[in-house]
């Protein structure tokens, strides 16, 4: 999972609309899951799409899923599926908040109104870590265990970007042209995961 991820263009972009398959691997060539792939129109004109709400569960004293990409302005709920309380917080500049000790579903969802990564922690369980990645574009996807993700993009030219919590350095965007045919992209990422804190 550490090391560089080569990004391979697998298909040509459709004229009308097409899917872009992105593959993220690490330096050792292993597939990298939980990586966020998003596309920014090269024109810089973002469609006025209404953001969809998202859910970040806490199950068995872990954030589930580990990473959720959301569109700017999305509201995220943090339902507590455990029978104990959690205190979810974030000190990330994109969104500073904390949900004081609660169980079940907090009263109101958190609205992420700044782009960028938001690291989530629980003040009670130090090892709990999760990320909300806020992107301005409505086109984003998260790599599965296979390390691949699929983006359905209208024809056009895009800057394809990848993000991962342990990404050592920001990778340059890959410009893809979508014109009816499917396109492919691959990223080789250099990951620097922190030492795993032990749950207790």
């Amino acid at each position, binding site marked *: 999972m550490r090391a560089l991820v080569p990004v391979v263009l697998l298909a040509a972009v459709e004229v009308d609309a097409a899917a872009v398959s992105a593959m993220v691997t690490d330096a050792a060539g292993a597939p990298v899951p939980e990586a966020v792939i998003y596309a920014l129109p090269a024109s810089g004109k973002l469609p006025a799409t209404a953001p969809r709400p998202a859910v970040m569960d806490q199950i068995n004293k872990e954030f589930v899923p580990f990473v959720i990409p959301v569109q700017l302005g999305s509201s995220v709920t943090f339902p507590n599926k455990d029978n104990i309380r959690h205190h979810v917080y974030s000190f990330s500049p994109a969104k500073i908040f904390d949900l004081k000790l609660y169980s079940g579903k907090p009263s109101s969802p958190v609205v992420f109104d700044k782009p960028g990564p938001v690291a*989530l922690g629980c003040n009670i369980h130090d090892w709990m870590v999760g990320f909300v990645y806020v992107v301005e574009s409505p086109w984003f996807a998260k790599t599965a265990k296979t390390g691949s993700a699929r983006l359905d993009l209208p024809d056009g030219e895009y800057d394809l970007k990848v993000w991962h919590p342990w990404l050592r350095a920001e990778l340059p965007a890959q410009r893809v042209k979508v014109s009816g045919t499917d396109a492919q992209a691959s990223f080789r990422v250099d990951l620097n995961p922190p030492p795993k804190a032990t749950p207790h």
Partner: protein
Amino acid sequence: MSLPKLRSLQARIALFFVILLITVQAVLVLLVSVSGERIAKDRIAQDLLVGERVFRRLIEQSNRQLADAARILAADFGFRTAIATRDYGTIVSVLANHGARIDANVVMLADLDRKLLADTLHPEQRATEFPFPDLIALAERDRQASSIVLIDGKPYQVVVVPVLAPVPIAWVAMGFVIDDRVAHDLRAVAALHVTFLSERRNGRWTLHASTLPGPLRAALIESGSAAGSKVGLGFVKLAGEEYETLAPVLGSGPEGNVVALLQRSLRESLEPFERLRSILLVMTLFSIGMTIAGSVLIARSVSRPVNRLATIARSIRDGDYSQKAAVEGQDEIGELAASFNHMLDGISAREEEILRLAYEDTLTALPNRAMFLDRLQQAVLTARRTNDPVSVMMLDLDRFKVINDSLGHAAGDQVLREVAHRLRELLRDSDTVARLGGDEFAVLLPTGTSDGVAIVAQRILRTLEAPIMLEGQPVDIGASIGVASFPEHDDEGDSLLRHADVAMYVAKRANSGYAIYDPRYEEGRQTQLSLLSELRRAVENDELSLFYQPKIDLKTGMIRRAEALVRWIHPTRGFVPPVEFIPFAEQTGYIKRVTRWVVERAVQQAGEWHRDRLDIAISVNVSTRDLMSNELVDLVAALLQKHAVPAEQLCLEITESSFMEDPARALETLGRLHALGVRLSVDDFGTGYSSLAYLKKLPVEEIKIDRSFVMHMVEDEDDAIIVRSTIELGHNMGLEVVAEGVEDHSGMEFLKRLGCDQVQGYYISKPLPTPQFVEWLKARRAVEQKPEAASA
């Protein structure tokens, strides 16, 4: 210890052990010292390395603890919230506040780009590079990092931990200043002197904290940079003391390096050895003391019995065998003591045997001359102290030579044994009977006076009177005894023996049985001896003759009695007065021979006169000695029979004192004489001290008033009274009274008036030789018819 003491066994034993001990201990101390220092130096290097490891571990441990504390602090939600504010003032204040919670002296905050966000030491300093990026790099990997670094020239223990939210959002560095307390805490565990030095980039050394006392710090700074610069092992001399030193670099930073100087004093390392040496010294002294005490005890347990044995040996030397060595225990000393006792028994037994042989006459088993002389000396010495008399008797057998020559030596030996046996039987155990040699015996009577000894002598003579049976034949052996007494005759033992010998010789010559020593024997010994032999010759050659003095019966005026008086007409000297030889004869015992002659002659005369019908009784004087044997009785009986003389014709006159020596014996003899019918008269009555009661027992018929009273009675009233009362006394006891020494008519008349029975004296007639007496008597008888003539 003085030299004479060293000669004693115990001192030498003690000295040996003390020297041995001192030598061993000295070698031990030397070994401990030499090897101790070497071991200490070897050990000190190792100890230092171990100490360094411990030291590093301690630092690590301390770092970890501080890091843990820092991490907990950094996880504080309030802290993180404050950090998240990005408000500088807030951040500085939260750093100071939370840092104080764990006593951090400095707290810094850096962003993920290692830019300094805040610094409590320098609040004004911002956005500079974080000074210890290496630590952040380490902390990225290990979630924490620590080092000892210089901040503003001072060493700090710095830990760096991330601020997690929950991914690192910043780095917090917390610094803890290193001071003496830290150094002491480390020393407490690492057992090393700990000094923290810094080496600046400019090469300057500074001491920051140390466990060394002040003066040594100064010394360290003085020798200073040199000591620090020499990184590695080595001995550093501080204030005269050697320190093994190790100087590991603890950490380096932009300002310079921090170096820990780990030191161990050689003296401290040597201390256990010093202590060991002290203990050894104390042990040595103690052991020496114990050794001396022990040696003295052991030596004493050896030497004391040995000394005791020596003491006993000395007393053995002095002839004292009474002390036995005490046998204590089964050890060699005990064996020695036992052997000693056996030796003692052996010596004493042998000596006894030798003494027996040396002091005993083998034939008779009586003491010999040597022993007798020894005992005599002892007895005299004792007698001198106690003033008791001691008497010595010399006894010589009269007829031993004859027996020996005629019957042989065996018979002679038998005689000697028998004599010895009889003597031993007779005498008390306290008396010493010895055979001096030949037929010579001696008796030592430790408490005898010469008078008492005379009785003993008589008893001895009597016991030897019994014949000894030799080859079935009775053999008579007579003996002669000489007596000398202490202190009467001499005060020296050998002189006494010599005197007794002289007396014995006198007795032998006189054939008188025994003689008591008289100095006159010695004075004119030759004269005496010649007188004795002349007297003997006189008896044998009839140089003696009897004179008769008549006694007149005052009632009848008739002469019916006469006293026979011995006269010695010496061929050359002429008439020898009786006083010149009678007492001498009595002393030497020769008087017995004289008495025998007188009695023989007198009885013979009486027989003649009886046959001639002269009708005159004869009185004879007998001595004490005559009463002490049966000889006289036998002699008288035999003579009376032989000459056919009626017993009443013989009268024996005995002196009053004669029976005082052995009254029982005298009485017995007198009794037997009386039984013969012989008339008995007490001569010299009134001169002795006999009691009337005793006189009453005597079987006598008459008493004679001594001439000394009679001679002066007419003029002397006292004598007259004595004479009168004697006469009355005699008559009251039924005795006839005879007065002698009547020299004139008035005397005779006086006595006649007093009722005296008989008188004799020069007035009637002087003693006359036989022919003249017979003549005188016949003439007198012729006129006896006319009583008046008697008084003419």
